């Protein structure tokens, strides 16, 4: 009970493990490219929660700064990925990632 009521590092790590698992599941099983991108965002959020949790309980600023840079990179990634998805839609008329197999024989 003491474990459950005093919020510690393990609570944040648990939440982040769940987010990472769901993100991986979305990336692996969904056909729609937009939902795959949402899975990637979930994974990045899980990483950010880990960074901030370790940073808080370590007392240093390294994790906080890294989380800030992760957010910037995520913004860049989302912009580029959406542009690519829109181009794919223009060419293939669908965003189904399993039907984009022109390079396959």
């Amino acid at each position: 009970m003491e474990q459950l009521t005093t919020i510690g590092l393990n609570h944040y790590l648990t939440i982040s493990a769940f987010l990472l698992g769901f993100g991986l599941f979305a990336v692996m099983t969904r056909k729609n490219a937009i939902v795959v991108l949402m899975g990637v965002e979930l994974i990045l959020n899980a990483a950010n929660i880990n960074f901030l949790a370790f940073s808080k309980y370590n007392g240093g600023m390294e994790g906080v700064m890294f989380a800030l840079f992760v957010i910037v990179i995520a913004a860049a990634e989302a912009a580029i990925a959406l542009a690519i998805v829109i181009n794919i839609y223009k060419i293939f008329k669908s965003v189904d990632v399993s039907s984009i197999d022109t390079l396959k024989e």
Partner: protein
Amino acid sequence: MSNTTYTVIFYLFAAITVCSAAFVVFTRNVIYSAFSLLFTFFGAAALYVFLSADFIAVTQVVVYVGGILVLLLFGVMFTNSIMQAGQKSEVLHIIPGILLLFGMIGAMLYTFYTTHGWMPSETPLQGSIVERIGFETMSRYVLPFEMVSILLLAALIGAAFLARFDKSGK
């Protein structure tokens, strides 16, 4: 704030984050996933406040909710016809996916809870860290800060170039 209130509020936000993340993944409707992602981002921002990273929480709301989520919604609405009801997104590899989901979560939780070696610092982060972020950005992290600004500029120009409406073509 008393300890019980703190704990209850923490569990509330943790439940919001995890349940809406599960809904993002398990619902078949793309629009529902996008709107459920909103709650995940807000819940994560609340957790950042609990981790005394208030500046990161505000950045999360501004960048993720204001930027990335709107971009994703634009993507959804560009690439699906909203009017046709019940547009589903197909799934593939469902069995390996579920195995990976439970394997990953189980393995990580097992590792976290059987590790007895967490040694929290005597001086965890307390209160607001905005001032310290300012100092760190302008001293130790000034080179990554400049690099990331150039990267962001290049990425946004590249995205606008890639997604532009091509008038001359076809």
